[in-house]
């Protein structure tokens, strides 16, 4: 498992039992099996929740011992309805009248997935460099601010405008994360603390900007920016029936880019080396501080890209809720993808589908979309603790692997 980093012998002599090489040698098959089982388990727990919270189930439960089948039936139908709506909203709406309406859900899933993938890459890349980037949320906000400002304040020709909006988003996002990287490199301030704080600072900064004349839409009192010019918008890929925009391809390209950076470039080698063992890296002549800063800055620019997708892909104008919790979902995406770029792309697709499906599920069956959070977090919890999943399904252990990324506040 790539997220696992070696314990540093000089610092922590007290944890020699930590699984390291055994975990990494464990094959793909084991990882995939645990992942699939985790998803199944999470969906089962979700089903239990749906059933328990269903009013008809509660009603029938009151006479469970007289007619137990009533309750089971009610529970079964409520779960089936909710999950059917989830599927229809995420993949394929088999009840729809036109073909486009039937396949629209999967394109909607991909729309949700695009920012999740790049933000997930932002968290995952930092993982590989031994950093826990909880600040994707703030970096997304800064990216959105950059993309929106370029989008509505500047007048530029067609392609140039869009590219500049993306670049502005990456720059601001990178800068924001770079603060955390710089502080870590220069003063040792833990990136988890600084990125959490930067999230809130970003949120208030956005609220402040939206109250200034430079950002607030003329004639409006609520915090909303002018609409982005159509020259800056990412082009729709399938026509007007779907919101699917070019961001999806950019996100997939970013996945390849991160893979190349980590596995084929010198910088990526340094990042991974520092992530695995900063002390050995220093001895080998790697500038640990610079690597830390670079990792955070690159991660931030990826998250900034997610902010740009929100603005010039779907929303068109900047509001206080532009980040929509993507930065936190990104953490679960990166964990599900185990820090592997391609894994993250797939995980982003899965969680994008859950989100799109959740919206439909809420609209059609009244099951709150919060269920998606539950399922998402349970998947990650199960994946993070393979021994638990194995115990539940009684699978023989192939090496005890648990996720270890951070090394405590003082590290």
């Amino acid at each position: 498992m790539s997220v696992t980093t070696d314990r540093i012998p000089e610092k922590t002599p007290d944890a020699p039992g930590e699984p390291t090489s055994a975990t990494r040698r464990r094959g793909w098959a084991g990882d995939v099996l645990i992942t699939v089982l985790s998803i199944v388990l999470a969906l089962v727990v979700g089903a239990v929740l749906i059933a328990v919270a269903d009013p008809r189930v509660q009603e029938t439960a009151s006479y469970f011992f007289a007619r137990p089948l009533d309750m089971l039936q009610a529970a079964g139908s409520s779960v089936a309805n909710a999950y059917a709506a989830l599927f229809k909203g995420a993949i394929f709406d088999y009840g729809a009248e036109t073909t486009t309406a039937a396949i629209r859900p999967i394109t909607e899933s991909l729309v949700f997935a695009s920012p999740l993938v790049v933000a997930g890459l932002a968290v995952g890349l930092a993982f590989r460099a031994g950093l826990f980037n909880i600040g994707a949320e703030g970096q997304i906000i800064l990216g959105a601010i950059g993309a929106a400002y370029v989008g509505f304040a500047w007048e530029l020709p067609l392609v140039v405008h869009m590219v500049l909006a993306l670049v502005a988003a990456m720059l601001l996002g990178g800068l924001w994360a770079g603060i955390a990287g710089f502080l870590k490199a220069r003063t040792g301030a833990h990136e988890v603390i600084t990125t959490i704080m930067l999230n809130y600072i970003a949120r208030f900064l956005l609220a402040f900007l939206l109250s200034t004349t430079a950002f607030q839409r003329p004639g409006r009192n609520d915090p909303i920016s002018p609409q982005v010019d159509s020259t800056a918008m990412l082009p729709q890929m399938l026509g007007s029936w779907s919101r699917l925009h070019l961001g999806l391809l950019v996100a997939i390209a970013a996945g390849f880019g991160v893979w190349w950076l980590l596995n084929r470039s010198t910088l990526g080698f340094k990042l991974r080396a520092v992530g695995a063992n900063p002390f050995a890296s220093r001895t080998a002549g790697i500038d640990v501080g610079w690597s830390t800063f670079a990792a955070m800055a690159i991660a931030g620019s990826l998250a900034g890209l997610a902010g740009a997708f929100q603005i010039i892909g779907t929303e068109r104008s900047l509001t206080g809720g532009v980040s929509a919790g993507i930065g936190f979902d990104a953490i679960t995406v990166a964990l599900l993808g185990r820090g592997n770029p391609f894994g993250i792309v797939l995980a982003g697709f899965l969680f994008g589908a859950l989100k799109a499906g959740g919206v439909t599920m809420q609209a059609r069956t009244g099951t709150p979309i919060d269920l998606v959070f539950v399922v998402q977090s349970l998947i990650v919890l199960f994946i993070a603790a393979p021994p638990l999943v194995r115990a539940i399904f009684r699978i023989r252990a192939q090496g005890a692997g648990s996720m270890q990324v951070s090394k405590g506040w003082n590290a």
Partner: protein
Amino acid sequence: MSTATRERLPESSTIQQGPLRKPPTWKSPIIMGVLGVVALLAFGLASNAGDTSTFGMSTGAQRLQIPALVLPTRPAAIVLSVLCLVLAAVAAAAVRVKRPVPLAVPIGFAALWLLAFLVWSMAGEQVPLPGLLGGTLLLSVPLVFGALSGVLCERSGVINIAIEGQLLAGAFASALMASVTDSLWIGLVMAPVAGLLVAVLLAMFTIKYVVDQIIVGVVLNVLVVGLTGFLYGRVLVQNADVFNQPGTFSRIPIPGLIEIPVLGPALFNQTIIVYLMYVAVIVTQVALFRTKWGLRVRAVGEHPKAADTVGIKVNRIRVQNVLLGGVVAGFGGAFFTLGSVGAFGREMTAGQGFIALAAMIFGRWSPVGALFAALLFGFANQLQGTLGALGSPIPSEFMLMAPYLATIFAVAGVVGRVRAPAADGQPYTKA
């Protein structure tokens, strides 16, 4: 980052004292000096000569009424800024003779500087001081409970990012149970139970399954947000009369103490949850630093192997403390519903758990420190509200940012460096 470790500033905590101590740096006197000059120029000399700042000193609940204090804005701000500069000079003098700067100096500096700021920002206005302080206290209550939860966990070596989740779970359970049973007291008892449940998961995954502590915390927060949001939408909203009308505790004025000028009505005319908070802070402070149990907990958090060698059950202590932390945070959750709003709302903790984390760090992992940090953050928040109503010279968003900025400065070592327990975040497995 080992350079950072080597460059670490000396600590005022007992652990690092002794021959290892390095001479103090000029950083803090310089920063205090600069801030003092800023105060003198911006708050003192730049304010209008004729303005006055008025502080109301009593509330109707007191028998003894004190007349409002009317201060001429400009002279008062100048005097306060000069006092700030005097403290900066004291710090500089201490550094010059290579003595550590006493902790009272920066604390006094912060208090005077804030007072100067307050006097300046309310020029021409009147603010009731007991109301300001009481509001500050109320805003800091959940932060204090949350930060105490963090202190308990992290002193034993388990990082607790799940404070937010514990608060939210406590808020949810107390509102639901108090409504269903029609008893605020049962609600108050169920809140820590909910916090405990989150803590059980935290302990199970971090200690039994040795999963990364930060990951577990982050994911547990998402889980609790999802669970409470789901049940809120599916159950509480559908039938709010039955499930989401707990009501709130009424204030209990403490006779005698409430007559203390200014502080009395702010501190001693509060609900049971606030009084519980006073008890919790004192008990944890004494327990952690004055008892055998506390010594063991800190030993486990600083050097688990050494603790294990002398027969302390490292992971048992950690589990205990994580669970205890969950209980404490649960009470903080009850404050949201039974102590102030009177109903549960989706994601109603709104990131307070993370400010609590910041308060714990800012308070240097000690209960009393966390209390003062939380009060400072609460004050910034309250001031923002008060000044917003008056039409403040500073945008309210920047006041709201202050706690987070302060925490970044604290961990980056701008004004004295904070240090976590040495083994914080590192799982312990026996070889």
